[in-house]
Protein backbone atom coordinates (compact mmCIF):
# COMPACT_ATOMS: atom_id res chain seq x y z
CA UNK A 1 0.00 0.00 0.00
CA UNK A 2 1.28 3.42 -0.91
CA UNK A 3 1.37 5.72 2.11
CA UNK A 4 -0.80 8.81 1.93
CA UNK A 5 1.25 11.66 0.51
CA UNK A 6 1.76 14.65 2.78
CA UNK A 7 -0.02 17.72 1.42
CA UNK A 8 1.43 21.22 1.73
CA UNK A 9 -0.73 24.23 2.46
CA UNK A 10 0.11 27.94 2.42
CA UNK A 11 -0.94 29.64 5.65
CA UNK A 12 0.81 32.99 5.46
CA UNK A 13 2.16 35.35 2.80
CA UNK A 14 4.15 38.58 2.94
CA UNK A 15 5.71 40.79 0.31
CA UNK A 16 7.71 43.93 -0.32
CA UNK A 17 7.48 45.07 -3.92
CA UNK A 18 7.43 48.13 -6.16
CA UNK A 19 3.66 48.14 -5.57
CA UNK A 20 4.19 48.73 -1.85
CA UNK A 21 4.43 46.93 1.46
CA UNK A 22 2.39 43.78 1.87
CA UNK A 23 0.88 40.97 -0.16
CA UNK A 24 -2.43 42.82 -0.34
CA UNK A 25 -0.86 45.93 -1.90
CA UNK A 26 0.79 43.65 -4.46
CA UNK A 27 -2.33 41.82 -5.60
CA UNK A 28 -4.84 44.61 -5.26
CA UNK A 29 -2.79 47.14 -7.15
CA UNK A 30 -1.74 44.68 -9.85
CA UNK A 31 -5.32 43.42 -10.30
CA UNK A 32 -6.39 47.07 -10.65
CA UNK A 33 -3.88 47.48 -13.48
CA UNK A 34 -1.47 49.71 -11.55
CA UNK A 35 2.24 49.64 -12.34
CA UNK A 36 4.98 50.24 -9.76
CA UNK A 37 7.72 50.95 -12.30
CA UNK A 38 9.10 54.49 -12.41
CA UNK A 39 11.87 55.86 -14.59
CA UNK A 40 12.60 52.40 -15.93
CA UNK A 41 13.16 50.81 -12.51
CA UNK A 42 11.00 48.79 -10.15
CA UNK A 43 12.17 50.20 -6.83
CA UNK A 44 10.45 49.16 -3.61
CA UNK A 45 10.59 52.80 -2.60
CA UNK A 46 7.96 52.50 0.13
CA UNK A 47 10.21 50.15 2.08
CA UNK A 48 11.69 51.77 5.18
CA UNK A 49 13.94 49.30 7.04
CA UNK A 50 13.57 50.94 10.46
CA UNK A 51 9.82 50.24 10.41
CA UNK A 52 10.75 46.58 10.80
CA UNK A 53 14.22 46.58 12.32
CA UNK A 54 16.20 48.35 15.01
CA UNK A 55 19.02 50.56 13.79
CA UNK A 56 21.50 47.90 14.82
CA UNK A 57 19.61 45.09 13.07
CA UNK A 58 19.20 47.19 9.93
CA UNK A 59 22.91 47.97 9.61
CA UNK A 60 23.74 44.28 9.96
CA UNK A 61 21.63 43.32 6.93
CA UNK A 62 21.87 44.11 3.27
CA UNK A 63 18.69 45.52 1.75
CA UNK A 64 17.74 42.13 0.28
CA UNK A 65 17.79 40.52 3.74
CA UNK A 66 15.95 43.50 5.27
CA UNK A 67 13.13 43.06 2.78
CA UNK A 68 13.03 39.31 3.43
CA UNK A 69 12.70 39.95 7.16
CA UNK A 70 9.85 42.42 6.58
CA UNK A 71 8.06 39.95 4.32
CA UNK A 72 8.61 37.10 6.78
CA UNK A 73 7.20 39.20 9.60
CA UNK A 74 3.99 39.67 7.61
CA UNK A 75 3.75 36.00 6.56
CA UNK A 76 4.58 34.58 10.00
CA UNK A 77 2.25 37.07 11.67
CA UNK A 78 -0.58 35.96 9.41
CA UNK A 79 0.12 32.27 9.92
CA UNK A 80 1.44 31.89 13.47
CA UNK A 81 0.23 35.18 14.98
CA UNK A 82 2.32 38.08 16.23
CA UNK A 83 3.05 36.62 19.66
CA UNK A 84 6.36 35.08 18.67
CA UNK A 85 5.29 31.54 19.62
CA UNK A 86 5.82 28.82 17.02
CA UNK A 87 3.05 26.21 16.74
CA UNK A 88 5.68 23.50 16.15
CA UNK A 89 8.93 22.49 17.77
CA UNK A 90 11.49 25.00 16.51
CA UNK A 91 13.70 22.33 14.97
CA UNK A 92 10.71 21.21 12.87
CA UNK A 93 10.41 24.64 11.22
CA UNK A 94 12.76 25.36 8.30
CA UNK A 95 13.72 28.51 6.45
CA UNK A 96 14.65 28.39 2.75
CA UNK A 97 15.05 31.75 1.01
CA UNK A 98 16.33 32.24 -2.52
CA UNK A 99 18.26 35.10 -4.07
CA UNK A 100 19.86 35.69 -7.43
CA UNK A 101 22.85 37.65 -6.24
CA UNK A 102 22.80 38.29 -2.48
CA UNK A 103 24.10 41.46 -0.85
CA UNK A 104 25.49 43.11 -3.94
CA UNK A 105 25.31 46.74 -2.80
CA UNK A 106 27.17 45.75 0.38
CA UNK A 107 29.85 44.06 -1.71
CA UNK A 108 30.16 47.14 -3.91
CA UNK A 109 30.43 49.42 -0.83
CA UNK A 110 33.18 47.30 0.72
CA UNK A 111 35.06 47.01 -2.56
CA UNK A 112 35.05 50.82 -2.75
CA UNK A 113 36.45 51.04 0.80
CA UNK A 114 39.14 48.49 -0.02
CA UNK A 115 40.27 50.44 -3.08
CA UNK A 116 40.03 53.89 -1.51
CA UNK A 117 41.32 53.20 2.01
CA UNK A 118 42.94 49.77 2.04
CA UNK A 119 42.12 46.44 3.69
CA UNK A 120 41.84 47.83 7.23
CA UNK A 121 38.82 49.87 6.17
CA UNK A 122 36.80 46.80 5.17
CA UNK A 123 33.97 46.18 7.64
CA UNK A 124 33.86 43.01 9.73
CA UNK A 125 30.20 42.92 8.69
CA UNK A 126 31.08 42.61 5.00
CA UNK A 127 30.74 38.83 4.77
CA UNK A 128 27.48 38.46 6.72
CA UNK A 129 26.05 41.37 4.73
CA UNK A 130 26.81 39.98 1.30
CA UNK A 131 26.46 36.22 1.76
CA UNK A 132 23.68 34.68 -0.31
CA UNK A 133 22.21 32.86 2.69
CA UNK A 134 21.90 36.10 4.70
CA UNK A 135 18.14 36.38 4.23
CA UNK A 136 17.52 32.83 5.42
CA UNK A 137 19.87 33.37 8.38
CA UNK A 138 18.23 36.67 9.35
CA UNK A 139 14.70 35.28 9.24
CA UNK A 140 15.67 32.12 11.13
CA UNK A 141 17.49 34.13 13.81
CA UNK A 142 14.65 36.60 14.27
CA UNK A 143 11.96 33.93 14.65
CA UNK A 144 14.03 31.19 16.31
CA UNK A 145 13.65 28.67 13.50
CA UNK A 146 15.99 25.71 14.04
CA UNK A 147 15.14 23.36 11.12
CA UNK A 148 16.72 23.15 7.65
CA UNK A 149 17.78 26.70 6.78
CA UNK A 150 19.74 27.79 3.73
CA UNK A 151 19.77 30.04 0.71
CA UNK A 152 18.90 28.92 -2.79
CA UNK A 153 20.82 30.42 -5.71
CA UNK A 154 19.53 29.87 -9.24
CA UNK A 155 19.30 33.38 -10.72
CA UNK A 156 15.72 34.27 -11.59
CA UNK A 157 14.39 30.83 -10.68
CA UNK A 158 15.64 31.02 -7.07
CA UNK A 159 12.35 32.07 -5.49
CA UNK A 160 10.44 29.21 -7.11
CA UNK A 161 13.20 26.69 -6.38
CA UNK A 162 13.13 27.76 -2.72
CA UNK A 163 9.38 27.19 -2.44
CA UNK A 164 9.59 23.89 -4.28
CA UNK A 165 12.43 22.69 -2.07
CA UNK A 166 10.58 23.86 1.04
CA UNK A 167 7.54 21.82 -0.03
CA UNK A 168 9.82 18.83 -0.58
CA UNK A 169 11.25 19.18 2.95
CA UNK A 170 7.74 18.97 4.37
CA UNK A 171 6.72 16.16 2.06
CA UNK A 172 9.81 14.16 3.03
CA UNK A 173 8.91 14.56 6.69
CA UNK A 174 11.96 16.69 7.51
CA UNK A 175 9.84 19.66 8.62
CA UNK A 176 6.29 20.45 9.70
CA UNK A 177 6.52 24.02 8.42
CA UNK A 178 8.98 26.01 6.31
CA UNK A 179 9.26 29.76 5.96
CA UNK A 180 10.29 30.22 2.34
CA UNK A 181 10.53 32.65 -0.53
CA UNK A 182 13.01 34.93 -2.24
CA UNK A 183 14.61 38.35 -1.90
CA UNK A 184 16.59 40.63 -4.18
CA UNK A 185 18.00 44.14 -4.00
CA UNK A 186 20.22 44.42 -7.05
CA UNK A 187 19.43 47.88 -8.36
CA UNK A 188 23.11 48.73 -7.99
CA UNK A 189 25.78 50.18 -10.24
CA UNK A 190 27.38 46.88 -11.19
CA UNK A 191 24.15 44.92 -11.73
CA UNK A 192 22.34 47.55 -13.77
CA UNK A 193 25.46 48.13 -15.90
CA UNK A 194 25.99 44.41 -16.40
CA UNK A 195 22.40 43.61 -17.37
CA UNK A 196 22.48 46.58 -19.70
CA UNK A 197 25.79 45.45 -21.23
CA UNK A 198 24.28 42.10 -22.16
CA UNK A 199 21.23 43.95 -23.53
CA UNK A 200 18.95 42.03 -21.18
CA UNK A 201 17.31 45.14 -19.76
CA UNK A 202 14.86 47.36 -21.59
CA UNK A 203 16.32 50.41 -23.32
CA UNK A 204 12.86 52.00 -23.33
CA UNK A 205 12.41 51.30 -19.60
CA UNK A 206 9.05 49.65 -20.25
CA UNK A 207 8.09 46.17 -19.07
CA UNK A 208 5.53 44.84 -21.58
CA UNK A 209 5.76 41.06 -21.63
CA UNK A 210 4.59 39.26 -24.77
CA UNK A 211 4.03 42.54 -26.64
CA UNK A 212 5.68 42.81 -30.06
CA UNK A 213 7.49 45.99 -28.94
CA UNK A 214 9.11 44.43 -25.84
CA UNK A 215 12.82 45.21 -25.62
CA UNK A 216 14.07 43.68 -22.39
CA UNK A 217 13.23 43.44 -18.72
CA UNK A 218 12.95 46.21 -16.17
CA UNK A 219 15.03 45.47 -13.08
CA UNK A 220 13.03 45.46 -9.85
CA UNK A 221 13.63 44.72 -6.19
CA UNK A 222 11.66 43.23 -3.34
CA UNK A 223 10.92 40.05 -1.43
CA UNK A 224 8.19 37.50 -1.02
CA UNK A 225 7.85 35.04 1.85
CA UNK A 226 5.31 32.25 2.41
CA UNK A 227 4.65 29.95 5.34
CA UNK A 228 4.15 26.38 4.14
CA UNK A 229 2.79 23.73 6.48
CA UNK A 230 1.90 20.08 6.37
CA UNK A 231 -1.86 20.11 5.76
CA UNK A 232 -3.02 17.87 8.60
CA UNK A 233 -0.91 19.68 11.17
CA UNK A 234 -2.20 23.03 9.90
CA UNK A 235 -5.79 21.78 10.12
CA UNK A 236 -5.21 20.39 13.62
CA UNK A 237 -4.15 23.80 14.88
CA UNK A 238 -7.00 25.55 13.06
CA UNK A 239 -4.77 27.53 10.71
CA UNK A 240 -6.34 29.58 7.94
CA UNK A 241 -5.43 27.97 4.62
CA UNK A 242 -4.77 30.42 1.79
CA UNK A 243 -3.81 27.88 -0.84
CA UNK A 244 -1.85 24.75 -1.55
CA UNK A 245 1.43 23.83 -3.22
CA UNK A 246 0.22 20.93 -5.34
CA UNK A 247 3.29 20.26 -7.43
CA UNK A 248 6.82 21.27 -8.34
CA UNK A 249 8.87 20.57 -11.43
CA UNK A 250 12.48 21.57 -12.07
CA UNK A 251 14.76 21.07 -15.05
CA UNK A 252 17.79 22.66 -16.68
CA UNK A 253 18.18 23.64 -20.33
CA UNK A 254 21.88 22.75 -20.34
CA UNK A 255 22.01 24.92 -23.44
CA UNK A 256 23.42 28.43 -23.02
CA UNK A 257 24.74 30.72 -20.28
CA UNK A 258 21.91 33.22 -20.64
CA UNK A 259 19.64 32.44 -23.60
CA UNK A 260 16.71 30.08 -23.15
CA UNK A 261 16.52 27.05 -25.41
CA UNK A 262 14.32 28.39 -28.27
CA UNK A 263 12.06 25.32 -28.39
CA UNK A 264 11.47 25.56 -24.65
CA UNK A 265 11.81 21.79 -24.36
CA UNK A 266 13.10 21.69 -20.80
CA UNK A 267 10.87 24.57 -19.67
CA UNK A 268 7.90 22.60 -21.01
CA UNK A 269 9.14 19.50 -19.23
CA UNK A 270 9.28 21.42 -15.94
CA UNK A 271 5.63 22.45 -16.43
CA UNK A 272 4.65 18.87 -17.23
CA UNK A 273 6.58 17.57 -14.21
CA UNK A 274 4.90 20.10 -11.91
CA UNK A 275 1.46 19.01 -13.14
CA UNK A 276 2.37 15.33 -12.83
CA UNK A 277 3.66 15.94 -9.30
CA UNK A 278 0.25 17.46 -8.56
CA UNK A 279 -1.50 14.49 -10.10
CA UNK A 280 -3.12 16.78 -12.65
CA UNK A 281 -3.07 17.29 -16.39
CA UNK A 282 -3.16 20.27 -18.72
CA UNK A 283 -6.97 20.48 -18.78
CA UNK A 284 -6.98 21.17 -15.03
CA UNK A 285 -5.02 24.43 -15.37
CA UNK A 286 -7.17 27.55 -14.85
CA UNK A 287 -4.47 30.22 -14.91
CA UNK A 288 -0.80 30.61 -15.82
CA UNK A 289 1.39 33.13 -14.04
CA UNK A 290 4.08 33.44 -16.67
CA UNK A 291 7.76 34.13 -16.15
CA UNK A 292 7.08 36.72 -18.90
CA UNK A 293 10.17 38.89 -18.54
CA UNK A 294 9.54 41.22 -21.51
CA UNK A 295 12.74 40.05 -23.19
CA UNK A 296 12.40 39.08 -26.85
CA UNK A 297 13.80 35.58 -26.23
CA UNK A 298 12.05 34.53 -23.02
CA UNK A 299 8.54 35.50 -24.00
CA UNK A 300 8.84 33.64 -27.28
CA UNK A 301 10.38 30.44 -25.88
CA UNK A 302 7.99 30.50 -22.89
CA UNK A 303 5.00 30.72 -25.24
CA UNK A 304 6.36 27.76 -27.19
CA UNK A 305 6.90 25.84 -23.93
CA UNK A 306 3.38 26.56 -22.69
CA UNK A 307 1.92 25.31 -25.96
CA UNK A 308 4.05 22.17 -25.77
CA UNK A 309 3.16 21.44 -22.14
CA UNK A 310 -0.51 22.42 -22.15
CA UNK A 311 -1.47 21.42 -25.70
CA UNK A 312 -4.92 22.62 -26.71
CA UNK A 313 -5.52 23.98 -23.23
CA UNK A 314 -2.86 26.68 -23.85
CA UNK A 315 -5.21 28.59 -26.17
CA UNK A 316 -7.98 28.80 -23.54
CA UNK A 317 -6.14 29.54 -20.32
CA UNK A 318 -5.38 33.14 -19.26
CA UNK A 319 -1.61 33.79 -19.10
CA UNK A 320 -0.37 36.96 -17.43
CA UNK A 321 2.93 38.35 -16.17
CA UNK A 322 3.34 40.04 -12.79
CA UNK A 323 6.50 41.62 -14.23
CA UNK A 324 4.30 44.00 -16.23
CA UNK A 325 3.44 45.63 -12.88
CA UNK A 326 6.65 45.36 -10.86
CA UNK A 327 9.47 44.56 -13.27
CA UNK A 328 11.79 41.61 -12.82
CA UNK A 329 12.60 40.91 -9.18
CA UNK A 330 15.24 38.31 -10.20
CA UNK A 331 15.73 35.89 -7.29
CA UNK A 332 12.63 37.25 -5.55
CA UNK A 333 10.45 36.99 -8.67
CA UNK A 334 9.32 33.38 -8.28
CA UNK A 335 8.29 33.94 -4.66
CA UNK A 336 6.51 37.26 -5.16
CA UNK A 337 4.77 35.78 -8.20
CA UNK A 338 3.71 32.63 -6.31
CA UNK A 339 2.08 34.91 -3.75
CA UNK A 340 0.42 36.97 -6.49
CA UNK A 341 -0.79 33.73 -8.10
CA UNK A 342 -2.38 32.36 -4.92
CA UNK A 343 -4.01 35.70 -4.13
CA UNK A 344 -5.29 35.95 -7.72
CA UNK A 345 -6.83 32.48 -7.49
CA UNK A 346 -8.44 33.41 -4.16
CA UNK A 347 -10.08 36.33 -5.95
CA UNK A 348 -10.89 34.08 -8.95
CA UNK A 349 -9.27 36.74 -11.08
CA UNK A 350 -6.53 36.74 -13.72
CA UNK A 351 -4.72 40.07 -13.34
CA UNK A 352 -3.67 41.76 -16.58
CA UNK A 353 -0.40 41.85 -18.46
CA UNK A 354 -0.16 45.61 -18.22
CA UNK A 355 0.90 47.41 -21.39
CA UNK A 356 0.20 44.51 -23.75
CA UNK A 357 -1.17 45.96 -26.98
CA UNK A 358 0.63 44.60 -30.02
CA UNK A 359 0.57 40.93 -30.92
CA UNK A 360 3.59 39.25 -32.48
CA UNK A 361 3.33 36.34 -34.83
CA UNK A 362 3.36 33.11 -32.86
CA UNK A 363 2.74 34.89 -29.55
CA UNK A 364 -0.97 34.24 -29.63
CA UNK A 365 -2.03 33.12 -26.14
CA UNK A 366 -4.55 34.99 -24.00
CA UNK A 367 -2.14 37.33 -22.24
CA UNK A 368 -4.99 39.15 -20.45
CA UNK A 369 -4.54 42.58 -22.00
CA UNK A 370 -6.09 45.69 -20.50
CA UNK A 371 -7.90 44.68 -17.35
CA UNK A 372 -8.18 41.69 -15.05
CA UNK A 373 -10.63 39.02 -16.11
CA UNK A 374 -12.61 36.54 -14.02
CA UNK A 375 -11.43 32.93 -13.97
CA UNK A 376 -14.57 30.94 -14.57
CA UNK A 377 -14.57 27.33 -13.49
CA UNK A 378 -17.32 26.57 -10.97
CA UNK A 379 -16.88 27.25 -7.26
CA UNK A 380 -14.15 24.76 -6.39
CA UNK A 381 -10.46 25.45 -5.89
CA UNK A 382 -8.68 26.83 -8.94
CA UNK A 383 -5.36 25.57 -10.24
CA UNK A 384 -2.48 27.65 -11.57
CA UNK A 385 0.98 27.13 -12.94
CA UNK A 386 3.68 29.65 -12.01
CA UNK A 387 6.79 29.63 -14.23
CA UNK A 388 10.26 30.77 -13.24
CA UNK A 389 13.30 30.53 -15.48
CA UNK A 390 16.82 31.73 -14.72
CA UNK A 391 20.11 32.51 -16.43
CA UNK A 392 22.02 29.27 -16.60
CA UNK A 393 18.97 27.54 -18.02
CA UNK A 394 17.32 26.85 -14.66
CA UNK A 395 13.60 26.12 -14.88
CA UNK A 396 11.40 25.86 -11.77
CA UNK A 397 7.64 25.57 -12.02
CA UNK A 398 5.10 25.49 -9.22
CA UNK A 399 1.57 24.14 -9.46
CA UNK A 400 -0.55 26.06 -6.95
CA UNK A 401 -4.20 26.05 -6.00
CA UNK A 402 -6.56 28.21 -3.98
Amino acid at each position, binding site marked *: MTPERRRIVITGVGAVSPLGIGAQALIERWAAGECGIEDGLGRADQFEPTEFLS*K*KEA*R*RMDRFAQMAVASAQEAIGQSFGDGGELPYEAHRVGCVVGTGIGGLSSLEDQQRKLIESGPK*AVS*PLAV*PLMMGNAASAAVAMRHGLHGHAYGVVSACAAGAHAIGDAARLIRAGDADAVVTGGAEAAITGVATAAFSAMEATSASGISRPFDARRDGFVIGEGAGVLVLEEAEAAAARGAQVLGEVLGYGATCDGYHLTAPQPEGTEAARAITLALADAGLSAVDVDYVNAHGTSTPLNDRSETVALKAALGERAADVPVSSTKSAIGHLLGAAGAVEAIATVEALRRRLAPPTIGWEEAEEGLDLDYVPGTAKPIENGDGPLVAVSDSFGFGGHNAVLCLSA
Partner: protein
Amino acid sequence: MATDVSTEQVEKTIFDGLVELGTERDQLSREATLEDLDVDSLDLVELAQIVEDEYGVELRGDDVKDVKTVGEVIDLVVAKAG
Protein backbone atom coordinates in the same frame (compact mmCIF):
# COMPACT_ATOMS: atom_id res chain seq x y z
CA MET B 1 49.47 63.13 18.64
CA ALA B 2 49.06 60.08 20.85
CA THR B 3 50.35 61.80 23.98
CA ASP B 4 47.65 64.48 23.74
CA VAL B 5 44.76 62.01 23.96
CA SER B 6 42.45 62.86 26.85
CA THR B 7 39.92 60.60 28.52
CA GLU B 8 37.19 63.06 27.54
CA GLN B 9 38.15 62.87 23.88
CA VAL B 10 38.19 59.08 23.88
CA GLU B 11 34.91 58.94 25.77
CA LYS B 12 33.31 61.09 23.08
CA THR B 13 34.77 58.89 20.33
CA ILE B 14 33.56 55.67 21.97
CA PHE B 15 30.12 57.05 22.82
CA ASP B 16 29.63 58.43 19.28
CA GLY B 17 30.90 55.18 17.81
CA LEU B 18 28.49 53.06 19.83
CA VAL B 19 25.59 55.30 18.81
CA GLU B 20 26.68 54.90 15.20
CA LEU B 21 26.58 51.12 15.69
CA GLY B 22 22.99 51.31 16.94
CA THR B 23 23.18 51.83 20.72
CA GLU B 24 20.73 54.37 22.21
CA ARG B 25 22.66 57.39 23.52
CA ASP B 26 20.61 57.62 26.73
CA GLN B 27 21.73 54.10 27.68
CA LEU B 28 25.40 55.05 27.52
CA SER B 29 27.56 55.58 30.56
CA ARG B 30 31.04 54.53 31.67
CA GLU B 31 29.41 51.98 33.98
CA ALA B 32 27.15 50.42 31.35
CA THR B 33 28.21 46.86 30.52
CA LEU B 34 28.75 45.78 26.93
CA GLU B 35 26.42 42.85 27.58
CA ASP B 36 23.57 45.12 28.71
CA LEU B 37 24.11 47.33 25.66
CA ASP B 38 24.05 44.23 23.42
CA VAL B 39 27.52 45.13 22.13
CA ASP B 40 29.02 41.95 20.69
CA SER B 41 32.34 40.92 19.16
CA LEU B 42 31.41 42.31 15.73
CA ASP B 43 30.60 45.70 17.31
CA LEU B 44 33.95 45.70 19.10
CA VAL B 45 35.80 45.08 15.83
CA GLU B 46 33.96 48.00 14.23
CA LEU B 47 34.69 50.14 17.28
CA ALA B 48 38.36 49.19 17.02
CA GLN B 49 38.38 50.43 13.41
CA ILE B 50 36.96 53.78 14.53
CA VAL B 51 39.56 54.05 17.32
CA GLU B 52 42.41 53.17 15.00
CA ASP B 53 41.28 55.79 12.47
CA GLU B 54 41.08 58.41 15.18
CA TYR B 55 44.10 57.66 17.40
CA GLY B 56 46.24 55.20 15.47
CA VAL B 57 45.75 52.67 18.25
CA GLU B 58 45.33 49.09 17.23
CA LEU B 59 42.94 46.99 19.33
CA ARG B 60 42.90 43.28 18.63
CA GLY B 61 40.36 40.70 19.77
CA ASP B 62 42.71 39.59 22.58
CA ASP B 63 42.96 43.16 23.92
CA VAL B 64 39.23 43.46 24.48
CA LYS B 65 38.27 39.92 25.36
CA ASP B 66 38.09 40.61 29.12
CA VAL B 67 36.58 44.08 28.86
CA LYS B 68 33.19 44.31 30.56
CA THR B 69 32.15 47.98 30.64
CA VAL B 70 32.25 51.00 28.35
CA GLY B 71 34.57 52.71 30.86
CA GLU B 72 37.07 49.86 30.57
CA VAL B 73 37.09 50.25 26.78
CA ILE B 74 37.78 53.97 27.17
CA ASP B 75 40.57 53.41 29.71
CA LEU B 76 42.15 50.76 27.50
CA VAL B 77 42.27 53.14 24.52
CA VAL B 78 43.65 55.99 26.65
CA ALA B 79 46.34 53.67 28.09
CA LYS B 80 47.33 52.37 24.65
CA ALA B 81 47.41 55.88 23.17
CA GLY B 82 49.39 57.33 26.07
